[in-house]
């Protein structure tokens, strides 16, 4: 049981690390919000499920933790969605970088 709990916690922290890494590498607000909304939410949920399986957590604490799981799963994507909607309405546009050499290569391959 405790091994399963530790595996769940480690997997969740790995997903949260992916989400935090995306804040460094992604180019604009939409891609960053994508990482925060999806990867962070499932990482949090996995960590909470792992803590729920630990022997330190009894029944009453488990009920509170179940509420945190349900609430965080609903609330985190909702908050990020509200932020992205506000960003879109105020005129933020996605940053698109065209790879001109690759586009030419594809077009040339189709022509020949």
């Amino acid at each position: 049981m405790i091994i399963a709990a530790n595996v769940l916690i480690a997997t969740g922290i790995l997903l949260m690390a992916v989400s935090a890494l995306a804040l460094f590498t992604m180019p604009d607000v939409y891609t960053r919000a994508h990482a925060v909304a999806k990867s962070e939410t499932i990482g949090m949920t996995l960590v909470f499920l792992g803590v729920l399986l630990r022997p330190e957590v009894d029944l009453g604490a488990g009920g509170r933790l179940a509420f945190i799981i349900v609430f965080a799963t609903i609330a985190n994507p909702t908050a990020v969605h509200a932020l992205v909607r506000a960003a879109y309405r105020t005129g933020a546009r996605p940053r698109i970088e065209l790879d001109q050499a690759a586009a030419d290569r594809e077009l040339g391959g189709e022509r020949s």
Partner: protein
Amino acid sequence: MDPFLIGALIAVAALIGAGLHRVWAGPTIFDRLVAVALVTANGVVIIVLLGATLERPNLFFDIGISYALLAFLLPLALGRYFEQQIRERDQRRAGDTTSAPKRTDAGGGSSPDGEVSS
């Protein structure tokens, strides 16, 4: 005090530091707010892990519930506030460009601001 849980706490604290870098360096206000959403989500995880590590889960999970509620309201309120602010600023700029020719007629001088921002 399970050493695995202490290692997990240190790892999540490092992730909070990574999120704070984006709060510091984000080019727009919404980049910063998205990073703040990640930092607060990691804060809830840290509180829950602390409750398991210190073996007082009832106390810490109550704190985690209230912190999760507050962390849900923060990006909603701030996102709506900054959306309104930026829209009002844009409307003010648009109003300046439309009212600029009237001012030039009255004052008799040219207004470079209206031409630039149109």
